[in-house]
């Protein structure tokens, strides 16, 4: 049989060193898994900037039955943004098969939803859902294990129903009081009844939609949890009210400087990124510019869409990748550990290779369980004009999967299945072991397209999935750091809220152990309050549930 032209192209590119043959394999199983669902975000083709972001997705265990369920923040259309097809909740049967339980659990969110954050806001032991919207944001308290078994909309009562266009949000404990505070990222002022004119707006000589430049950016919001399930807006007194707001698209709460206080990183579209350093006295200082994380090495404020975190250079500090527009590169910022970040994109092979793509979600996970973290980046252009006019980037694009090779460069993977060959309108993505088989799977949303679930079929199941628990609030331990030490090597993961793009991934530390793991693995956990805990002789595979202060570690085998 003659090879297809696509095969020939891939072979040629691989020969040229652009692509990399890998052991990673993914199979698309959305329909088979019971998620036959098309996301909505405006009309097709997109005419306005409101219609291009797509919706977010969360992977979390809402019913505490030890598997990862799915929530999709679904959009609507410009003619009726309050009445879209509705957001969806799917329950996992523990083997990666999902059932739509949206109605069963009383979820009736028809408003144009954008992003999602998950956290136990009332410390009752189950995860609640915060939904960012075009229109008032929504907080759903998880009462599924009580009373009528439903989620209850407490947005107004909780004081978080701000009606500016919000994109992403993240939970974290900024004041160390063991309840979860909330950062909400706002984008720009937009009136769907009077959308901005497209007249005179061009990209590479092609008429396109207006924005974000020319439209008014919005301030973000920092909420402090009052401890009773309600929140207080502390944006101004905390110092998070900025002189020049950005076009916010993504946020992540993480301790970037190792002082056991959670900082806030905000990714802004076409404006500088913010890094709010937690001073520990209830205030923050934006050190984005000072630290070097605000822009790329040339000082360009990039169109930041997503944020991923990992210890790329092995110095124990969280490094970041941010995704960007086409005809630009994504940017890796190494955390030098002295308060500064440095753009090292080229060093890791992630510069020129990403220029043809407009990227969104981005995460580091060890998809092949070979003891180093790989990289997934979703792709798809915002301008439908890219389908017909040549703007150096296509409208539907391949998703990007990179394998970490020899501890240095990332190599683009060419042979992992349709995940890297099918052209899609990729947007948000979430990550976790949905079928509990010992590898990290991927759920990808599209702009006005069907959800994709990519089952990881790697043959190596030597993975440790470490779940952190703590009594007395913040039960998933957002802010914890988990280190795996084995054979003189260290891997490190952070349990955090936010990141990727408008989405929530499983708050679980996944460690690949390689094909021949040593038997000397030690887990070291730094809890959000700074307490340390060590687990010696950790197994080579399985789920470990570690509770702060308890020596008894629960170990569960994979399916």
């Amino acid at each position: 049989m003659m090879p297809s032209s696509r095969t020939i192209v891939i072979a040629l590119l691989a020969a040229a060193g652009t692509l990399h043959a890998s052991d990673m394999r993914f199979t698309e199983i959305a329909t088979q898994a019971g998620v036959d669902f098309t996301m909505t975000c405006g009309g097709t083709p997109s005419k306005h900037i409101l219609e291009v972001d797509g919706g977010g997705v969360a992977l979390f265990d809402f019913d505490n039955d030890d598997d990862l369920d799915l929530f999709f923040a679904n959009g609507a259309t410009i003619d009726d943004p309050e009445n879209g097809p509705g957001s969806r909740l799917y329950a996992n049967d523990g083997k990666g098969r999902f059932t739509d339980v949206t109605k069963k659990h009383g979820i009736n969110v028809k408003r144009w939803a954008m992003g999602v954050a998950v956290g136990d806001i009332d410390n009752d032991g189950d995860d609640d859902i915060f939904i960012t919207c075009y229109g008032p944001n929504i907080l759903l308290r998880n009462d599924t294990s009580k009373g009528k078994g439903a989620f209850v909309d407490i947005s107004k009562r909780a004081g978080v129903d701000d009606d500016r266009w919000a994109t992403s949000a993240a939970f974290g404990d900024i004041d160390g009081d063991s309840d979860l505070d909330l950062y909400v990222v706002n984008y720009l002022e937009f009136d769907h009844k009077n959308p901005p004119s497209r007249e005179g707006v061009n990209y590479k000589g092609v008429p396109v939609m207006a924005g974000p430049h020319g439209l008014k950016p919005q301030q973000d919001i920092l909420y402090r949890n009052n401890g009773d399930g309600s929140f207080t807006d502390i944006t101004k007194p905390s110092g998070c009210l900025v002189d020049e707001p950005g076009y916010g698209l993504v946020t992540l709460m993480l301790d970037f400087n190792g002082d056991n206080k959670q900082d806030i990183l905000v990714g802004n579209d076409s404006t500088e990124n913010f890094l709010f350093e937690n001073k520990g006295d209830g205030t923050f200082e934006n050190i984005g510019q000072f630290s070097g994380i605000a822009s790329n090495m040339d000082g360009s404020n990039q169109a930041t869409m997503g944020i991923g975190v990992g210890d790329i250079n092995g110095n124990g500090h969280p490094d970041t990748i941010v995704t960007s527009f086409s005809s630009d590169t994504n940017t890796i910022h190494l955390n030098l550990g002295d308060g500064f970040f440095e753009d090292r994109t080229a060093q890791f092979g992630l510069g020129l290779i990403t220029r043809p793509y407009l990227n969104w979600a981005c995460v580091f996970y060890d998809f092949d369980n070979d003891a180093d973290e790989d990289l997934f980046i979703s792709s798809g252009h915002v301008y439908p004009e890219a389908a017909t006019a040549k703007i150096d980037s296509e409208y539907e694009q391949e998703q990007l999967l990179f394998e970490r090779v020899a501890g240095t460069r990332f190599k683009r993977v060419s042979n992992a299945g349709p995940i890297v060959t099918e052209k899609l309108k990729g947007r948000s993505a979430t990550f976790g072991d949905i079928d509990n088989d010992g590898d990290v799977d991927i759920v990808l949303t599209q702009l006005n397209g069907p959800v994709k679930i990519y089952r990881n079929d790697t043959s190596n199941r030597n993975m440790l999935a470490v779940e952190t628990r703590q009594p007395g609030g913040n039960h998933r331990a957002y802010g914890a750091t988990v280190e795996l030490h084995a054979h003189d090597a260290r891997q490190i993961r952070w349990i955090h809220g936010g990141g990727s793009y408008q989405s929530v991934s499983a708050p679980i530390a996944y460690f690949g152990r390689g094909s021949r793991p040593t038997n000397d693995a030690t887990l070291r956990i730094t809890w959000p309050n700074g307490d340390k805990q060590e687990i010696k002789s950790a197994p080579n595979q399985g789920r470990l549930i570690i509770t702060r202060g308890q020596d008894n570690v629960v170990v569960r085998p994979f399916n």
Partner: protein
Amino acid sequence: MTAMNHRQPVSIHVVIALSLSFAGMCVHAQTDTAVTSKAEPSSPTPSEPDSKSQQQCVALIAKGRFDEARELAKSFVAQHPKSSQSHLLLALTYHKQRKYEQAEPLLEKAIALDEDHNPPKMFLGWCRYYLGKQKEAEQSFLAYLPTNPDYPDIHFALGLIAYERDDLEEAMTRFDRAIKLASQQRRATDEAKSRARRADILIRQNKLEEARDELTTAIRLNPRLYGAMYKLSRVFHRMGDKESAKKAKAMHDTVREKLHPTKGHPE
């Protein structure tokens, strides 16, 4: 912007020079690259458009009147379908507009029509660079190199490619060569951008004082090189000199806004 090319003696005197300064992050491409026409100004051959028309086309490109320039260049191609120069000019109407996908095949055609015509090789290299085709870009630059070994920009380009490969030694060698040649040829902007990129390597090597000096020289040579100003502010920050960092950043902001005012997304 137009400039005369005094670099190499040519029997053909018409010189087309285009400023290839790009907005956005591509500061390293702030360069003046000369394109030597193959046409005689006073005695156009039947196979080439006349020099006056070529100059008119170049002037339109330089003014950003790409559609008009394109129409003119298309007429060149229609009238002189075997003219490498006509294809080059048409390609440049796209290249200057940063529409590299459309420029690329035209440059390939220009080279196919005349393998000895070198400028298309250089432009093709940059096209491929900005399209993310690292290997192919390097091949194009290397194809240009043998006939123009003393052209600073070719070493600068190969330095960037080496930097992308994380081959810092090779990158340093290339930037050093580019700096030396540019200095000898009094090409200040070329020298400046190579020094700015050399500083990137010094920063990677944590040689902050050397990087500071290199960036300071680069900015002196080209006061429009705002990317170098930003890098200098980063270096000052890391050296603990907040006041100098602030000044360098302010200079960056002013120059960048002056050269590339925010007009509307994304250009």
